[in-house]
């Protein structure tokens, strides 16, 4: 557990306040003031859980644009592909499956990068991340895969997360 830091509080405050404006959607002075007070209180309490690395990191335009690009093109493309194959399995009577758990290595180093990659893998139908471990400086993901085509770790990793990881490497290291 780390201590509360100034930049982390500011970043958490900005996120909370943006979310307040988004949900409230009125721009009267008293509403904005109430939102600011609540956001500041939440930021003081929660910033040390919310931010573990460089706080101003997300507000750099290059990173933000890379994240938007990842979301709108790379991830949605993979999502549609995986969904269509999953729907085909389901409408075909759910008999054509070969489930298994494979261990795949990943290049990701930072906490946020690992979390984003694991969540992206879980969100694509057909793969669920079950465990993240670190062995000798290399991070590994254990992935439940509904249709195991490769048991070799490198090839399975390429099939599961090849394009996802390439897209995310532009955002996190």
């Amino acid at each position, binding site marked *: 557990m780390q201590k509360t830091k100034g930049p982390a509080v500011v970043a958490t405050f900005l996120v909370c306040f943006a*979310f307040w404006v*988004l*949900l409230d*959607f009125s721009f009267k002075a008293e509403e904005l003031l109430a939102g600011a007070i609540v956001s500041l209180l939440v930021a003081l309490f929660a910033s040390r859980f919310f931010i573990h690395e460089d706080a101003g990191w997300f507000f750099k335009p290059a990173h933000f644009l890379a994240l938007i690009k990842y979301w709108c093109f790379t991830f949605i493309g993979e*999502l*549609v592909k995986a*969904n269509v194959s*999953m*729907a085909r*399995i*389901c*409408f075909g*009577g*759910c008999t054509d*499956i*070969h*489930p*298994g*758990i*494979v*261990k795949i290595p990943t290049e990701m180093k930072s906490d946020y990068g690992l979390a984003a990659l*694991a*969540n*992206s893998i*879980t*969100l*694509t*139908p*057909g*793969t*669920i*991340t*079950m*465990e993240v471990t670190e062995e000798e400086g290399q991070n590994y993901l*254990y992935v*439940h895969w*509904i249709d*195991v085509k490769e*048991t070799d770790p490198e090839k399975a990793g390429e099939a599961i997360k090849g394009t996802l990881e390439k897209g995310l490497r532009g955002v996190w290291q």
Partner: protein
Amino acid sequence: MLIRIIIDLLIVGGLVFAVAGTIGILKMPDPFSRMQAATCISTMGVLGVALGGILYTIFVMHNSAAAIKIVAIALMILATNPVGSHVIAKGAYSHGYRPKKKMDTDDLGRDFNE
């Protein structure tokens, strides 16, 4: 008129994936595979219906505040759903649940249960 057709197609497309996921939940042989099928509902099902709802609120209801709220709902579901799936799968596995039919490979069991 054209926009209504697009909205209807988006919502029906989302529902097709939701039906596929439901069939998967009912017919898959073990809990892990069942969760894989359920992911279909919470991704393409939600995205299709939400996109249709966004277009409906903008072009038919002329209410962009509601559209932004639907965007927030879709983002929230996409952000929170994988955490739940991951914890349920990991909990079921570490509690000792295994599929009746043997899995093709089981690296997690190989590395942790010996």
